[in-house]
């Protein structure tokens, strides 16, 4: 009996997909590169321009969006077989709002100054196309674990672009990183470039990043 059970278990293990199979790994790595939500799909640009003057709010925003995307993906994926298709968008919105408000409340309670800087943008994660896009395109048709990875991947892809933008903007715009005066501590005089701190400067910078990334991975818009 016991040997039989062991054999059955083994077979089962072989059949079950490993947690980090090639396919699952791609769910994380694709959004970082050839399927990046910001630079390839051009989603979430509004907040990417608005919260990237400094590293700290950009980091918190990325974290917030990653948590929201991953958690809503899991929730919707778990419910996907029960959701009536006629009201699925409303159900998705309700779940996304739930997570967004939770994140907002927690930020207000524990990192009040950052929450003030992010102001409306945390609330606007609700309308962020990345979140709704992943729910509709992925979570509605996949199991919770891949949906979680997909949410993490897209959140990280968005976060990566935000951090790159914030790094350049804070370093060359204000001469600091995470509020630490880099140039001043090295004893170098540095006059911050004010353009980088304005939304217009961020737009130009983001445009350049999109250009660089697309020429690296060879992505073309299909007509």
């Amino acid at each position, binding site marked *: 009996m016991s040997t039989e059970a062991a054999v059955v278990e083994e077979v089962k293990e072989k059949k079950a997909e490993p947690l980090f199979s090639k396919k699952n790994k791609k769910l994380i790595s694709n959004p970082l590169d050839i399927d990046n939500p910001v630079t390839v799909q051009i989603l979430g640009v509004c907040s990417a321009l608005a919260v990237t003057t400094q590293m700290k709010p950009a980091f918190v925003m990325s974290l917030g969006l990653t948590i929201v995307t991953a958690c809503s993906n899991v929730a919707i994926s778990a419910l996907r077989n029960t959701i009536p298709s006629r*009201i699925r968008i409303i159900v998705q919105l309700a779940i996304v709002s739930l997570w967004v408000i*939770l994140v907002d*409340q927690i930020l207000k*309670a524990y990192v*009040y100054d950052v929450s003030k800087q992010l102001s409306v943008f945390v609330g606007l994660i609700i309308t962020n196309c990345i979140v709704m896009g992943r729910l509709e395109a992925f979570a509605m048709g996949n199991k919770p674990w891949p949906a979680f990875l997909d949410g993490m991947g897209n959140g990280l892809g968005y976060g990566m672009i935000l951090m790159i933008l914030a790094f350049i903007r804070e370093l060359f715009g204000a001469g600091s990183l995470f509020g630490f005066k880099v140039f001043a501590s090295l004893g170098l005089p540095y006059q911050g470039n004010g353009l980088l701190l304005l939304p217009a400067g961020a737009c130009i910078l983001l445009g350049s990043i999109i250009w660089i990334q697309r020429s690296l991975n060879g992505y073309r818009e299909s007509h």
Partner: protein
Amino acid sequence: MRQSNIYIILYSAAITVVCGGLLAFASTSLKDKQDANIALEQKKNILSSVLTLNEGENIDEIYAKQVKGFVIDYDGNVKEGKKPEEVIIAVEYKKSPKDRLLPIYEFRNDSGKVAYAVMPVYGYGLWNNIWGYIAVKSDFNTVQGVKFQHAGETPGLGARIESEEVQERFKGKSIFDNGSLTSIVMQKGEGHDYAKDIHKVDGMSGATLTAKGVNNMLKDYLACYEKYLKKNAGAKQQSS
């Protein structure tokens, strides 16, 4: 089954109840912490209108030791039994000036004398409400500092009222001119030198309407505080 109306109605009702319940729970359990943050923020704003706060200073301690808050009415009389923390400026702003409850925060130096008086101000900018604090020195005339905040001014233009660079311009200006309330007026255009003019400050390029809102706000609220300021300034002159 999944498409029937009853199922849809029940499903949406269940989702609403579950989400609503979770949010209500989160909101009530985090409320104390959030309120504490808001109170601390207010103290920080009051203190930073009179002095430069360094990172890591104990705001609660300085505030408790040196700031005494009370509420006055339009005639400058102290309203007993009212706590300044409980007065909501946004609500008072909607009343006519004579009916407003006016909180005052007096910053006292170590010997117990009033060094600065901090007055909350509230008004309307270009797009939405603006508010802040104006602090005067012990002559109840010279501005020690201002602190402005806004809800929706244009970033890079009107939103600059929040920046230290703009707030610095108000330092050392005077509210009264030979005993009559003149307030301080932010001018149109930027880059002019108003160092000699004690009632004018340099404007913000591209944000003339926000500046107008600031001017109205100061004029409106300083008029409310006029009697209090004059009373104290007069008392001081008599005693000296």
